[in-house]
């Protein structure tokens, strides 16, 4: 797994690349935690366009961050999941609690609007 992180104001943009399974779950969790602790971030945007596989170990990492951000009135947004990844997300009920956007810009725009409300 490669991980690209970018912070834009109150949002953490994450672009993982490769397969998200048990082998990378600890690293994935630690990287997200470190970034979330570095600034007052309440929005996490996960760009999944380059993720070819995900299983419950990394879904747990995402869910853990979701639980954390929801407490501070934040949210987690998903961007452009590939079909096989999206089926796993669907089955996990993730789309009931997280929105999916076709690209990062749309996900970020809605965050700006959300904060303006």
């Amino acid at each position, binding site marked *: 797994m490669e991980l690209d992180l970018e912070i834009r104001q109150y949002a953490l943009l994450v672009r993982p690349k490769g397969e998200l399974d048990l082998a990378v779950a600890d690293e994935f969790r630690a990287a997200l935690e470190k970034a979330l602790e570095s600034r007052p971030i309440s929005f996490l945007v996960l760009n999944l366009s380059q993720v070819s*596989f995900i299983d419950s170990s990394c879904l747990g990492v995402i869910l853990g961050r979701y639980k954390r951000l929801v407490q501070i009135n934040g949210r987690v947004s998903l961007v452009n999941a590939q079909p096989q990844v999206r089926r796993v997300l669907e089955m996990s009920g993730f789309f009931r609690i997280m929105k999916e956007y076709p690209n990062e810009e749309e996900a970020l725009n809605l965050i700006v609007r959300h904060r303006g409300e």
Partner: protein
Amino acid sequence: MMEVVNQMKLEFLSIPANVAFARVAVAAFASQLEFTLNDLEEIKVAVSEAVANAIIHGYADSPNGIVRIVATLGKDSLEVRVEDDGKGIEDIRKALQPAYSSDPERTGLGFVFMQSFMERLQVDSAPGEGTRVTMIKTVNPSLSSTQLKH
């Protein structure tokens, strides 16, 4: 019992890097049958979950355990057995419930995926005696059941 067309066995240490190895190996083996790409993706997730369970729960993250996989191809079906000699499951019914997990960071979805992505799932386990997960997936089951009717 299905007629055995081909069979392979794998044995590896209970380390997380082997989760990817196991799912790719089983999916490559399964591709000898006419599974769709989607089927193969589902097999990968199911195997991933079973092996991850063996490592995390069976061996409590110890890297010294042995995970065994036996994959058997029938004429139109795959059976995958994933076994460990770890601590076993105390209450299998409880473990099979969605969102049941002994750790708050985990989703408890492992068995849900195995159940949803494979046609049959059987879990044999006892405390101190390891766990054996047996999963079966058939090639295009909707088509073969239609053929049977006509």
